[in-house]
């Protein structure tokens, strides 16, 4: 998640900075020449060497994504660990630690053939035993997402060192969409077996198989990774070193990019209003691909157990009073796309664009509220509500402010409440003491992994963050959710998800607001052959500097 400590909320507009002169003149000349030459000749000749300085914010808690799925951990960890597969821009699996894979015709087993000759950073060989051990002891027991994803795995066979066979109780196609280094990170069995996994010291000084080796973590300052000389992809990685710096202040991050001290930052590292300006500087560019695997969407939960919100007509009225285009263009500076369904349009196969029933229409909103029996008082208001928002930065707060304004037009008086993350998740997912709540989820590449959790009735009020916040309970929806998990046929799953979207957009416990477009700020001379669909948690394996930066 894009967690942000509240001090990031308070960020200030930097005055328009003049690109500095003197020593930068040479660099400017270089860019001018670079732009004039055919881009291909530059982009396709990787240059070895150089140190990449990137932003990591907030500072990770631990560096092992198998144990903590937080965004900063995933960002760093993706360089140290390989995935079994990578995902390309269309979210198709590509060989990584697994060279090939096949699902049995009956869908009840998945065979992975592992790459030979891969070594852990401590020199021990990587084998099928590592995969089996991690699946049984980490993914199925403590991993917050994978307990559900791998729930149908009843047995893991390892006929030889390079073959893993997952035996399934029911077909489980979602597994193949969650096998990268973030979705299913393989840990070295020889360092973890028999230890207290959550407290294993290697969580903080990880030993992986990835393109970069963990070197040093100075808390509050930086994390240093060095090139893995024994990496299985010969000649890669190109970079000698990757340094992640912890820079807690947003304005300081902008200044760091501007000055060239920092060459890479993912997950929208600077405020939206700064992104456009930085993107226009010759030495920087803004990239919005690389987040397809996350497919983040922002939504508004209605507490369906409270007051006027119990009435679906009221929920539809509030939806129609909300202009999702304005949220995209004004509140999110265009770094968003209006959402019409809880299944984001990036998951093209599953997405149903026609299920939305609530186009922006203030008149119809007013009429619906009248019909539901909530007439305006003498002062023009019908009722009042509280709105709480996920405290991950200014953009979420502005969304709450926009909704306050929008609902005022239809006579609903909204009060914004602010709190920190712990208080917010307890209020919404534990105490259920809220009316409206704004949060974002990652949908991931299969809606079973990231979307259905918002509608599954069993998690209501259990104080489990990022589950069903609205309190929605519908047996039919629960039934669809359990059916898609064990359905092998892609067509049937798609049909089930289309039904799902129709029902939840009719009952509307949750209003999808916008699909978020996270962005990366990077140096213009930092190149890569292809940005992966899961680049956000991927590695710098394929990145190089056009002209290696001198150390």
């Amino acid at each position, binding site marked *: 998640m894009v967690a942000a400590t509240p001090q990031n909320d308070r960020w200030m507009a*930097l005055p328009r900075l003049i690109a500095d002169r003197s020593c930068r003149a040479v660099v400017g000349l270089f860019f001018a020449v670079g732009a004039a030459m055919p881009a291909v000749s530059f982009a396709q000749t990787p240059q070895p060497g150089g140190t990449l300085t990137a932003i990591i914010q907030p500072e990770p808690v631990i560096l092992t994504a198998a144990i903590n799925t*937080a965004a900063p951990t995933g960002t760093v960890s993706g360089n140290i660990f390989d995935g079994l597969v990578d995902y390309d821009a269309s979210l198709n699996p590509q060989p990584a630690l697994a060279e090939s894979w096949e699902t049995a015709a009956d869908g009840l087993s998945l065979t992975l053939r592992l790459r030979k000759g891969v070594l852990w950073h401590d020199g021990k060989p990587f084998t099928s035993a590592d995969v089996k051990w991690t699946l049984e002891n980490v993914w199925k027991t403590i991993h917050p997402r994978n307990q559900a994803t791998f729930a149908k795995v009843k047995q893991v066979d390892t006929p030889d060192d390079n073959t893993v066979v997952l035996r399934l109780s029911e077909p489980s196609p979602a597994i193949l969409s969650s096998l990268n280094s973030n979705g299913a990170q393989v840990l070295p069995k020889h360092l973890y077996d028999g230890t207290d996994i959550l407290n294993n010291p290697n969580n903080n000084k990880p030993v992986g198989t990835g393109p970069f080796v963990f070197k040093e973590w100075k808390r509050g300052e930086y994390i240093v990774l060095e090139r893995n000389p024994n990496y299985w992809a010969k000649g890669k990685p190109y970079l000698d070193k990757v340094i992640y710096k912890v820079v807690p202040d947003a304005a300081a991050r902008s200044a760091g990019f501007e000055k060239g001290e920092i060459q890479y930052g993912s997950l929208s590292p600077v405020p939206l209003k700064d992104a456009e300006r930085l993107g226009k500087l010759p030495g920087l560019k803004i990239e919005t691909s690389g987040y397809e695997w996350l497919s983040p969407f922002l939504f508004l939960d209605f507490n369906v157990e409270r007051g006027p919100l119990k009435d679906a007509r009221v929920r539809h009225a509030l939806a129609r009073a909300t202009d999702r285009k304005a949220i995209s263009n004004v509140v999110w500076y265009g770094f968003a796309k209006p959402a019409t369904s809880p299944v984001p349009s990036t998951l093209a196969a599953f997405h149903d664009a026609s299920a939305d029933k609530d186009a922006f229409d203030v008149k119809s909103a007013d009429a619906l509220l009248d019909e539901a029996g909530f007439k305006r008082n003498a002062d023009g208001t019908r009722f009042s509500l509280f709105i709480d928002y996920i405290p991950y930065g200014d953009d979420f707060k502005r969304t709450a402010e926009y909704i306050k304004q929008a609902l005022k037009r239809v006579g609903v008086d909204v009060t914004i409440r602010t709190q920190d993350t712990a208080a917010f998740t307890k209020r919404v997912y534990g105490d259920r003491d809220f009316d409206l709540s704004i949060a974002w989820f990652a949908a991931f590449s299969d809606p079973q992994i990231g979307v259905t959790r918002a509608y599954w009735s069993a998690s209501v009020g259990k104080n489990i963050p990022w589950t069903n916040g609205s309190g929605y309970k519908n047996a039919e929806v629960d039934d669809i959710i359990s059916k898609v998990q064990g359905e092998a046929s892609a067509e049937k799953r798609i049909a089930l998800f289309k039904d799902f979207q129709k029902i939840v957009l009719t009952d509307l416990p949750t209003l999808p607001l916008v699909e978020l477009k996270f962005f990366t700020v990077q140096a213009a001379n930092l190149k890569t052959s292809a940005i992966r669909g899961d680049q956000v948690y991927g590695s710098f394996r394929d990145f190089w500097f056009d002209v290696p930066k001198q150390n």
Partner: protein
Amino acid sequence: MIPVSVRFFGRRALQLVIVVLGIAITNFFLLRLAPGDAAQVLAGEAGSATPEYLAALRKQFGLDQPLPVQFALYLRNLLSLNLGFSFRQGLPVLELIAQRLPATLLLMGTSITFALLVGSAMGVAAARRAGRATDTVISSIALLFYATPVFWTGIMLIVVFSVWLDWLPVGGMTSIERGYTGLAYLKDVAAHLVIPATTLGLFFLAVYTRLMRAAMIDVQQQDFVRTAVAKGLRPGRIAYRHVVRNALLPVLTMLGVQVGAVLGGAVLVETVFSWPGLGRLAFEALFQRDLNLLLGILLCSSVVVVLANAAIDFLYTVLDPRIELS
């Protein structure tokens, strides 16, 4: 008969134990009033969670124990001088504090020294020309720095000196990518220190200037100064020998307060400049409900406050022989 100084330090030591223990116990229960716990924060950051994951985290953090048991464990640790373990960070609290201590002491030490010296000098200058143009200018400057939010001063200094002029680095404490060692490393840290220490120093400076100025003006009107003037002493000698020394007491009190707060660091400045100090560590620990770490930092801070106060009381007797240790 026990000497006065031994009795003084003995009593202060006892006081230290009682105060620190009281603070520790109060903090333990006070911090638990915050909604949510560390497991929930961690699960929140993870972006997804299950009841099993939360239960595993609570067990790991010891949060599955009843409160009295947690308290007993905490007391036992405390009495054996063990600050406990930060499960979130996976490191002992003492080690985490020790990692941040050098950066904190460097930043706070430099800025307080800068503020004390420059601020007092400005105060003396203002007092000697009280009511005249110099005084007005100095007082206005001091007030301006005091009234400007530190993060704004910090960002403006970054914009001017780092981005425009490119004289100094934007933030952090070292240029890790350069791999400096020895003298070059020290020069590098010094370059990183300039802007944050100045930012914080300018904020502190105003307090010393105003205190020094007020105290000087007060002392200047006292009889012994009139006597010195009547004796025909040069004004400079009167000012430095008689007035400044007597005017130092309130400045010293202020210094005690600031030195006491040194472990608290300076959250805003540390944040703006990515300075790896204790203030940020404590601030983040609060939001992360990392209570062991927060309790550890607060405990160390309270020890420093009590020690700084004792030291200042002792220094009073050195500066002003009329004050006795009691």
